[in-house]
């Protein structure tokens, strides 16, 4: 290492900081990108919910249900779907503590407010959570792994910028059919064109992991994590119940008041403490709708509906952290910006995948015996195929399981997720057993088939297939099915390209050269 140039040592750093956590980074990028559409995915995965936004009728229905079922509860919790839908209107009630604790829950239709049977699924929420808490491993371990991967990503981005010799001269460069050179072009183009996005998403991703990465700022100043949160996010007004009962405010009035007081922002969650008591307090937590928007709750007096004194809002540092997390999650974005987020994220996913593939492509030609590569090479090659193609197969399987599993199955939502990993695991075993090129072709072809089957299963098992959805102008369902078909087409195209690679690449390249010299 000693006498290498700065750029060479950065190239070394880029190679290994990218490769070692590369497969985890691919998973984080892929699932994170998909999660930009988590509400829309939830809409599709809960086809029982026809309407998205919550109506006043439904809120009144929720109030009536709570008053009938749990008039004496200590607390009512109402979770409202956002305008993007995907979630039902959920009411929960709780009373007592410890042994005597009682609770109940009802799922309501956001339009009618009647109780509705919705299939047991975690929807897009699981894909979102998986991109940082993983699955089947303890949360602390997932957190450490994801933190390490995110740090490595940041190192890889910065060292990659240093390593890239001609960012501006090669800005628009993309050459097909030239082996390692083409893979490098793909890697460079996806990295450079969406560089602002990659920097932003990685940095703000680190910010979301702040308390794990930088615990010392808290541990030096506060005796415990809890006391920090108490100081940073002081609790709102609390009142003991007086035992004097009055009819509680109806939820639709409460939401209306909150909208007026919060400048139009609808609450995402309403908590009523001591419902029906004169000392009742209503907390209204906003759902994030605008960048840097407030995440502080609004407190209403439960008997008069008047706004109560809020706890002091947290400082500028907390506010900047809030903006960065908003930027990362993109929940404030409208449909167009959401697609831009998604496409930039897809670029990042391709960047990570092409980097991983480039590692093998560059080394294949230098192998002493290409027919019998060494263990490290084979490991990277197999992990590439099984993580890149396998995770895509898994997501398709997750959507298929949502449509195919029996509706009254026990632990249904868990089995949807197990389905994802069973298919992925099976793909892994298959891929390890096959020659590399065949494995790529077969895995990508299988991806193509699975993604084609998703809209088919949707059309057969619900009344909301592609054609009825087109007629009903239900753009979420249309968009979902078309995205599945586009993904299937992309996988099939990639499989076809790899399958025909050796046979056609050479003459085509010659023809291209000839054409270039002719013009």
């Amino acid at each position, binding site marked *: 290492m000693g006498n290498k140039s700065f750029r060479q040592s950065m190239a070394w750093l880029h190679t290994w900081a990218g490769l070692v956590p590369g497969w985890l980074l691919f998973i984080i990028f892929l699932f994170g990108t998909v999660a930009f559409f988590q509400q829309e995915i939830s809409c599709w995965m809960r086809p029982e919910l026809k309407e998205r936004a919550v109506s006043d009728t439904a809120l009144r229905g929720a109030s009536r249900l709570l008053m009938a079922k749990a008039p004496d509860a200590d607390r009512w919790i109402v979770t409202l779907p956002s305008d993007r839908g995907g979630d039902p209107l959920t009411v929960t009630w709780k009373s007592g503590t410890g042994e005597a604790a009682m609770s109940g829950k009802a799922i309501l239709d956001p339009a009618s407010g009647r109780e509705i049977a919705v299939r047991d699924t975690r929807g897009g929420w699981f894909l979102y959570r998986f991109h940082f808490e993983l699955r089947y491993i303890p949360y602390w371990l997932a957190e450490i792994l994801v933190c390490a991967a995110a740090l490595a990503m940041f190192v890889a981005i910065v060292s990659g910028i240093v390593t890239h010799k001609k960012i501006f*001269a090669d800005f*628009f460069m993309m050459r097909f059919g030239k082996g390692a050179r083409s893979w490098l072009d793909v890697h460079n*183009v996806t990295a450079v*064109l969406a560089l602002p996005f990659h920097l932003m998403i990685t940095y703000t991703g680190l910010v979301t992991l702040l308390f794990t990465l930088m615990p010392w700022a808290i541990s030096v100043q506060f005796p415990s994590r809890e006391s920090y949160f108490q100081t940073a996010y002081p609790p709102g007004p609390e009142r003991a119940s007086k035992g004097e009962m009055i009819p509680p405010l109806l939820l639709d009035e409460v939401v209306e008041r909150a909208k007026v007081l919060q400048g139009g922002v609808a609450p995402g969650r309403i908590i009523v403490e001591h419902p029906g008591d004169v000392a009742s307090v209503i907390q209204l937590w906003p759902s994030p709708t605008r*960048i840097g928007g407030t995440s502080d709750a609004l407190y209403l007096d439960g008997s008069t509906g008047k706004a109560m004194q809020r706890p002091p809002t947290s400082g500028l540092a907390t506010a900047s952290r809030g903006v960065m997390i908003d930027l990362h999650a993109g929940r404030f974005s409208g449909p167009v*910006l959401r697609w831009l987020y998604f496409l*930039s994220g897809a670029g990042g996913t391709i960047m990570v995948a092409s980097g991983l593939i480039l590692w093998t492509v560059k080394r294949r030609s230098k192998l002493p015996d290409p027919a019998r590569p060494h263990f490290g090479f084979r490991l990277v090659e197999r992990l590439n195929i099984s993580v890149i193609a396998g995770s895509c197969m898994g997501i398709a399987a997750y959507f298929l399981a949502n449509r195919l599993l029996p509706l009254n199955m026990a632990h249904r939502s868990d089995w949807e997720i197990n389905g994802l990993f069973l298919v992925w695991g099976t793909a892994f075993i298959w891929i390890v057993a096959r020659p590399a090129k065949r494995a790529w072709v077969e895995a990508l072809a299988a991806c193509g088939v699975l993604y084609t089957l998703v809209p088919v299963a949707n059309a057969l098992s619900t009344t909301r297939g592609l054609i009825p959805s087109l007629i009903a102008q239900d753009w979420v369902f249309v968009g979902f099915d078309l995205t599945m078909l586009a993904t299937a087409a992309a996988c099939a195209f990639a499989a076809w390209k790899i399958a025909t690679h050796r046979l056609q690449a050479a003459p085509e390249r010659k023809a291209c050269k000839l054409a270039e010299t002719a*013009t």
Partner: protein
Amino acid sequence: MTHVATFLLSLGGFVLLLLVIPRHQQDWLGRKLFPRQRRVLRLAGLAMLALAFIVAGGGLGWAYGAIVWFGWLTMAAALVVTANANRARIMRRVRP
């Protein structure tokens, strides 16, 4: 509408910036441009990208618009790269 304008301005800007690079001048125009022409192209391209920012910020608010601007910049540049990579095919269609 703001989105379309932001995208088209970014696209125009990147097309001009593509033509600043001598290798691509040879490919697309069949000749190399003079340094002064290159400078004009570069300034015009950057001006269009800046204008796209103003359109996005003015139309959608500066915080939201700035994010949208970055998104459309990426898409516009990606489209220019795709066109550039398929130059032979495009040229054949335009001038068979």
